[in-house]
């Protein structure tokens, strides 16, 4: 079976370098599925879950936005953080969720800073995505 090489590259390390059958990336305008022999592509990414299949087993990786490039039979994902489910600190993500919810509540009632509200919402989204990545282990 034809395979793709998936490399997830972060500033600290290469988070993943694997031969996969398919990849679904969280593109800026929605999920994008990539199979072998895909046309060359460059895409911006949202924070979200990167899903891939190795030997019929499905795995996920949490990415915090970034970029994906398909060139030849290689998918390169360049992101600030790529976390495997087992690397995610559940307690910390829950804590972040609570904080973000509190900030949103505060921002909505009073004449809160709209920028801060947006940030809090983004933080909440990240926390929830981390938790869902953790669960799909």
């Amino acid at each position, binding site marked *: 079976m034809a395979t793709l090489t998936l490399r997830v*590259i972060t500033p600290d390390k*290469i988070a993943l370098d694997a031969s996969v059958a398919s990849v679904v990336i969280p593109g800026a305008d929605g999920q994008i599925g990539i199979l072998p022999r895909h046309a060359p*592509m*460059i*895409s*911006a990414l949202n924070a979200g879950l990167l899903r891939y299949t190795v030997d019929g087993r499905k795995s996920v990786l949490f990415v915090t936005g970034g*970029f994906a490039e398909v060139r030849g039979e290689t998918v390169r994902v*360049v992101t*600030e953080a790529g976390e495997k489910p087992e690397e995610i600190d559940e307690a910390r993500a829950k804590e972040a969720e609570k904080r973000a919810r509190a900030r949103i509540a505060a921002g909505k009632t009073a004449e809160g800073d709209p920028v801060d509200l947006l940030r809090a919402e983004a933080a909440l989204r990240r926390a929830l995505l981390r938790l869902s990545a953790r669960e799909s282990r």
Partner: protein
Amino acid sequence: MASIRDLRNRIKSVGNIRQITRAMEMVATTKLRRFQEKAVASRPYSQEITGLVSRLAALLGDDVSERPLFAEGAGQKVAILFVTSDRGLCGAYNSNLFRKAELWLAANPKVDVDWYVYGRKGYSYMTRRGRHVERFLVEPSLEQTDYRSAARTSKALVDGFLAGKYSRVLVMYTAFETMVRYVPTEFQFLPIQEVKAATDTQKTSGDVILEPDAAVIFDSLVPRYLETRIYNALLESLTSEYASRRVSMKNATDAAKTMGNGLKKVYNRKRQENITKELLDIVGGVEALK
């Protein structure tokens, strides 16, 4: 001439200094290795980002030079990010960079500079000379720096540039060439210049699907590219600092060793002399009694 006791004290203190510098040398070696590993680990990321930037620039063609971060800023002033160390005892590491800064200032006498400084040494140097330090970046300290703090610094510089405060932004840091060669270097951070060169050398073949479109990707990619440049500059400076510190501590240890040996020789000769003198006295006394 120093007395026997003075000599003994000096030998002891030289020995102590030697122990300390030896320990500092070993600490520097460990830290050096750590920062080198960090620098190596970050390389694929910055290569990928740089590659993407140049490929997208090729797709965008001439439009690139009209984007905001690629044209000269509206301001009169120049911002310089100045990367020095927090601690001394690292040879000529800091003073080499100070000299670089002085040369630049001498060549651009009419320019009003806002300094963004990493490292206590650079901060005290600049404030002592009455230069305007716009920001002293201590949180987190240079040694604890990670990609995210480098990204914050990058953002502060980009924001200042886009707000029309600066016409240009430069970075002065110490490039790490080899274990014994560290070169004070400056490069222009903003407006971005290097990407233009990549445009004519690299041509992407065939059609590339772009999601959402080239301009949007490019505009979110460029800040990442700038972040990697800052991060690399910081890591290279740190590597240079510790390489330089290791060499100077090694030299100090060796010097202490040579000095200790020399002092020991003098001390032994002196002691021998004293014994001989005493013997002569005794022999002389015995002679006199006869």
